[in-house]
């Protein structure tokens, strides 16, 4: 028992244990709950910092528990898992602060924060999974722990949204289970290996490998919201804002996208996936999703719904990057895992602020809101312009590398997709910014819950989006600095392609 074997498990437990304790906390013990939440988040951050340092120096961390002969639950750390773990941990901390403010005076907070912590535990479990079996275990647990959060408000709409969410994700889970067991029966324990682990499978089994890939993609595509498996995401927007922000912008959809990265790079290996024609399938699905999501976003008046369709579209950039052969496109796809996360969480925080402060739920109600809530609207603008791909915000970096990767790989059609998508992004985001900054404000806001004071809204609601908007700028401006998302992603790509 050393640090090397304990650290990955400790990262999972640092939110699991506080989560379980929070369930037992009496509803009115507000401070105890905050203490548990924040200490868990800070301890996790500390552990993750140690892990980043170790992985950078080629250190191996692995926790292992044998469930049955040949069936191990393995948590390990490579560069890709560290990227996702860091993203989840940082954003968990920010979102916890936000949720404390957002849920003040609402019922059932112990239940909410309990499941919230369990969700984060399963997300880092997904990130640290060392084989496909472990990935599957945490992937399913994530489904289960998110369900009560979507249903949290207990209204008929939220229960309906939660049911739709569950139908999609559990069906996807069954597909993933089938594919995983099949692969296991064919090739033995499916350990994530840089460069892939299916090279030894004889060519006459390649048909089976294609079928298995389709099953896995079907399972992962549900959470990654690939069209036509995306239907749950807009329906889940009935959840409270912190849930939409962290889970539906970061944890859940990223779990699907991250799984696609794992399957393409570390199970099949990108060369084999290319030889089997699987990258074409993935690329086609991703492109269709990018365009379809943006088109649907154009037509939404509900702010959260518009953001949800934008998520559908943007998450597929990650899959698109994985579908192009070559390290540059890999960098573009993987770095978008982080960039899309910080940009989208900013947008959702802001949407929550508009709703909580002024009762604004629709785009058509946003006229002149920039003058009433300048900081929130500024953060929103950074996120939105980043999504469009305006330099120097993080989103530009992603699109640049994706485009460059496509040109290197002679897949020029990707440029068409990127161009169209950027136009559509502008089409659904710029009108919002125009309304917010340039239209005159109405006589009265729909429901003004929080009157203007020294700050435009509560501090716990305001700081999180301002901080994450700052991260979007830093990730873009300092993209070449050491330990920036881009630099780290280049490390991943180098190790993945053995450069």
């Amino acid at each position: 028992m050393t640090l090397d074997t304990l650290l990955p498990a400790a990262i999972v437990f640092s939110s699991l244990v506080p989560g379980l304790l929070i369930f037992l906390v009496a509803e009115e013990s507000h401070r105890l709950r905050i203490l548990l939440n924040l200490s868990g988040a800070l301890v996790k951050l500390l552990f993750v910092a140690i892990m980043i340092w170790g992985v950078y120096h080629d250190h191996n961390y692995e926790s292992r528990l044998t469930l049955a002969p040949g069936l191990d639950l393995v948590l390990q750390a490579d560069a890709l898992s560290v990227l996702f773990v860091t993203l989840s941990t940082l954003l968990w901390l920010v979102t916890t602060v936000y949720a404390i403010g957002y849920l003040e005076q609402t019922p059932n907070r112990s239940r909410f924060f309990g499941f919230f912590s369990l969700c984060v535990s399963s997300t880092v479990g997904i990130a640290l999974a060392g084989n496909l079996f472990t990935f599957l275990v945490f992937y399913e647990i994530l489904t289960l722990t998110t369900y009560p959060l979507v249903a949290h408000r207990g209204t008929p709409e939220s229960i309906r949204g939660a049911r739709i969410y569950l139908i999609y994700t559990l069906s996807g889970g069954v597909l993933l289970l089938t594919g995983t067991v099949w692969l296991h029966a064919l090739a033995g324990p499916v350990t994530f290996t840089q460069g892939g682990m299916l090279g030894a499978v004889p060519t006459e089994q390649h048909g089976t490998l294609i079928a298995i890939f389709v099953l896995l993609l079907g399972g992962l595509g549900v959470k990654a919201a690939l069209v036509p498996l995306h239907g749950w995401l807009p329906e889940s927007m009935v959840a409270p804002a912190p849930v939409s922000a962290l889970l539906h912008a970061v944890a859940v959809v990223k779990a699907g996208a991250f799984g696609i990265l794992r399957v393409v790079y570390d199970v099949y290996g990108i060369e084999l996936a290319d030889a089997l024609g699987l990258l074409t399938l993935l690329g086609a699905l991703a492109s269709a999703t990018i365009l379809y999501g943006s088109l649907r976003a154009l037509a939404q008046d509900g702010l959260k719904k518009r953001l949800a369709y934008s998520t559908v579209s943007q998450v597929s950039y990650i899959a698109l990057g994985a579908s192009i052969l070559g390290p540059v496109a890999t960098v573009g796809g993987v770095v978008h895992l982080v960039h899309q996360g910080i940009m989208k969480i900013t947008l959702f925080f802001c949407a929550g602020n508009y709703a909580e402060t002024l009762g604004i739920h629709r785009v058509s109600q946003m006229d002149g809101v920039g003058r009433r809530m300048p900081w929130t609207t500024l953060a929103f603008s950074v996120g939105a312009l980043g999504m469009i791909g305006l330099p120097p915000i993080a989103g530009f970096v992603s699109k640049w590398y994706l485009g460059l990767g496509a040109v290197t790989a002679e897949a020029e059609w990707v440029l068409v997709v990127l161009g169209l998508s950027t136009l559509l992004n502008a089409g659904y985001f710029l009108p919002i910014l125009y309304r917010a900054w340039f239209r005159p404000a109405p006589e009265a806001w729909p429901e003004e819950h929080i009157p203007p004071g020294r700050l435009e809204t509560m501090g716990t609601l305001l700081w999180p989006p301002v901080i994450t908007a700052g991260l979007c700028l830093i990730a873009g401006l300092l993209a070449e600095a050491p330990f920036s998302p881009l630099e780290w992603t280049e490390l991943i790509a180098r190790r993945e392609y053995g450069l």
Partner: protein
Amino acid sequence: MDSLALAVALPLLAALLATVWPARATLLGLLGALATAAAALMVITEVWEHGQLSTALGGWDIPLGIALAADGLSAALLAMTALVGLAISLYAAAYFDGRQAMHFWPLWLLLWTALNGLFLAGDLFNLYVTLELLGLSAVALGALGGDRAAVAASLRYLLVSLLGSISYLLGVVLLYTAHGSLDLARVAAALQPGPVAAAAMTLMIGGLTMKAALFPLHFWLPPAHASAPAPVSAALSALVVKAAVYLILRLWLDLFAPLVTTGAAMLLGGLGAAAVIWGSWRALHAERLKLLAAYSTVAQIGYLFLFPPLFQATPPGPGRDDLLAALVLMILTHGFAKSALFLAVGVIQKRSGHDRIAELGGTAQRLPATTFTLGLAGIALIGLPPSGSFTGKWLLLNGAFASGQWGWILVILTGTLMTAAYVFRVLSRAFNLEPTPPGFVTDARTELPALLLAAIAAIGLGLAAAPLWPLLGGGEDGT
């Protein structure tokens, strides 16, 4: 006295004491439950250390005396019975009072005696005796509710139970006439394929499938399990049905191993598949929670019968060891999950006076711990990670893929989705706009035993099942 005899004698003694001293029945019952669980623990430790145990009661060796024996399989079931039994006892101490307690404890301890006796019996006739005792005490417990429906369901249960035992007994008579012995090991050694052995197998296993409520012989189970008081339903669904399954498994693997044909295995598998689909379908449309739980038992028993065709297709070795361990794991997980479910339903029923699914609104707020129990038990029933049945289902699917039996895969996956549908149909009703609860636990004496059982099923058995392999004797031959 050695542990095997204690495991049977202690609950019997406690049952007798509770009968002669009814005013102290609850206290005696709890002490008896503790002592029985301790004896079971002794048996398990000894089996873990020595692999196999056997003893001849009263110093008379077979073929004259009564032999008790234990191996990994019986130890595993004994352990499940001990833990579930202990939780049911704690729960019942708070659930029953007055006359009901007086009637409950002797019968319940007698039922436990019969279960332990059945798991430890080493010969065919003792198996019959314990099977009969089990059936009778189960029927009497089921009628404890005392209303018309409960009595009618119990009478039907009695009839089925007797039919099943008689069919089993006829098979035993055939074997005894042919081989002159009742000892399991001796008969197994002497058994020759032929019409007598085939007839005996059909009669014995046929009779037992009736007791195990395998589709289409399940008709008696839902009314009987749904009309009994909650702790009794828990015992019936989690333990009593498993005793028949255990016996079928014992006969199938040990006694009739040279006789079983692929056709017979396919027949059992087919019936199991039908049970999975039909049971889940009925559970999905049940209006009351207890009926849902009872139909879910029908479906879950079905999963267990998907194993025989895979046993047939898998040669001895690691693959077969995995299948056996998976089967035992699924039996255990269902035992813990279903007892937890029934106990939780009992809490809801006592609190709100009914168990209609459509009117469960607010349970999540009023009874958080019990809703948690429902959730955890549901996870184990669906077979989602990290439950024991997830590992079991994984190995089952793996075996089906490895032997190319695609049909079963489809059944398992369909069953999984249907189970998820009926479990979440209940859970989604639990949320509504009720105010916040004062605390997580509202009635510790009934809520905690149920929660503990559910946690064992949904987490413990999934993460800590590895010792099952060496216990069942598969680990040492170099997997």
